[in-house]
């Protein structure tokens, strides 16, 4: 997702201003001139300056164009013009959404069912068939559980489907 430099610059400047303001509100250390407020204020001001610089285009001359990829026959295909993936934008948000799904449901459903949903959904989103998604959902979660829960002793929640080990 490409956002214009003007917008990212303004966003960063606002974030910097908020950080500097938030920092200035922090209580000082009694008897000291400097405390926890100094660093966020310095960074905040720096971010405001950088944000403004990005918005007005300072430094954009350094940016290199995207690599041009040569095809097998020697012809050049500019990056981003290959055959598009259907629903690419929607698929891009799948991994973070699945991680959130894991964080909020693993305690209720247990590790194995949650992990199975995660791997199957990712596999499917990447163009895998139902069969490969199913095979992966059946094999990967128990294997990961064995390594992390049994060997590394990470307390993975058993939930609906506790493992025998």
């Amino acid at each position, binding site marked *: *997702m490409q*956002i214009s430099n003007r917008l*990212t610059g303004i966003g*960063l400047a606002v*974030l910097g201003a908020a*950080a500097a303001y*938030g920092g200035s509100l922090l209580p000082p*250390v009694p008897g*000291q*001139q*400097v*405390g*926890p407020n100094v*660093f*966020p204020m310095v*960074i*905040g001001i*720096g*971010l405001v300056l*950088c*944000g403004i*610089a*990005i918005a007005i285009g*300072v*430094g*954009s*001359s*350094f*940016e290199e164009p995207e690599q041009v990829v*040569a095809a097998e026959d020697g012809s050049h295909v500019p990056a981003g013009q*290959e055959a598009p*993936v259907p629903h690419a*934008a929607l698929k*891009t*948000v*799948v*991994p*973070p*959404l*699945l*991680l*959130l799904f*894991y*964080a*909020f449901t693993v*305690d209720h459903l247990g590790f194995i069912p949650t992990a199975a949903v*995660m*791997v*199957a959904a*990712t596999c499917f989103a*990447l163009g895998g068939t139902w069969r*490969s998604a199913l095979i*992966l959902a059946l094999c990967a979660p128990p294997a*990961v559980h064995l390594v*992390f829960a049994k*060997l*590394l*002793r*990470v307390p*993975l929640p058993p939930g609906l489907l506790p493992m025998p080990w």
Partner: protein
Amino acid sequence: MSTFIEAWQMVLAPDVLIAILLSAIYGLVVGSLPGLSATMATALLVPVTFYLSPIAAIATIITASAMAIFSGDIPGCLLRIPGTPASAAYTDEAYAMTRKGQPELALGICLWFSALGGVFGTLSLIIMAPLLAEFALSFSTFEYFWLAFLGLMCATVVARSSPVKAIAAMLLGLLIACVGIENPAGTPRFTFGSTDLLGGIEVIPALVGCFAVAEVMRAMSVPEPPQLERRKFGSILAGQWKLTKEYPKQQARGNIVGIIIGVLPGAGADMAAWVSYAMAKRFSKTPEKFGTGHPEGLIEAGASNNASLASGWVPSLLFGIPGDTITAIAIGVLYMKGLNPGPTLFTEKASSMYALYIIFMLGNIIMIPLGIIMIRLATFILRAKRYMIMPVIVLLCAVGSFATGNNLFLVITVAAFGVVGYLMEKNGFPVAALVLGIVMGSMVEQHFITSLIKSDGSLLPFFARPVSAVLAAITIGLMVWPLAVWLYKKRPQGRAAAI
């Protein structure tokens, strides 16, 4: 001598040897898979290191990263897709050799000169680190502050993007490091009332998010890479000794450039490879042969990226300033295992340091036989479909980050940083600068505030000591440089000159 023997005993412990072997295989496999970088391989390994002895933990990081950097060359040679960003610089050259019917020679060069580069990098670490440690003992907080700041600025200069965006990314990282109660007064800062944020943003989940989740997100929007056809390889190492004798200058230059770039904070193996490849072409007697399957650039850049890997440990061990993103992760592991970076590490934990050198050497030596096996198996491993690997990576991101603190909030952190890393990369903000900001934030602040308290709020003492004055001048120069270039280009004659 007794410390040296002690170091060997540490390395030869069965758990360490098993850790080296397994992490070597892991590094070779992960590095060879396109899209899975050496940094990602290392980040995913951290939860496992929790459960290992200190030396075994460090051994896994060193071996896996070295192997991953080499094996990133394999898909580059065979498929024209670099396995890791560090191989991208010379992928075209290696692939051209494969097209000429010399895949063995190309892969052999990558393997042989990677191993040699790694050995030279390790020698530089062995020689440089103790010398610099002695020098660093006289440093005060002022020097440490400038050094850390300079490290951050270096990361912004070497980034292949706009320096202003790189500085912004670095500041964002520093701001993220401000979250929590780990500040000079122990006041909750930017926690917004959340108890999960009191401890600050954990570095490892942030790294896993930026490098692994963002990569899976990217994979979602690009088509599956082409399949590799089955092929049989001849002798991998045949002709390498001849090339070693034929191109000694290129090799030496690659090693030295790699070592220098590795020592620079923030600049890692990928930068070393790009610079060395460009240098090889610039100084070559036959630059027209570059890009047509000529070994010269391959030798120089292949040696350079592995040499940078070892020398990247110099600033990490001495000052806690990461030489690249891999050592940024390694520093976390060093702290966790009680090997806190600093010049005193060389006096107090001398045997551990020797053990580290030995592991580096061993890692680069076993790279040759294991690399040959990996090359022979590559046609099978590279047939693995992306939709079978990436789902496991997503699962490992969740479980691995949870394991770092047994807290589900860390999984949310990974997801958030995945989005941040993806958006940053898409918009030309270097993720490495953000990561270095997060890793070094508390250190920079601590030295900054301690120095300010010592100087009673005055900024003059920051420039009073000779070493700190030099470091300050370089740092400020790097900061003003993009603005100066911009102003120069704004001038009418400057614009004319630019055209």
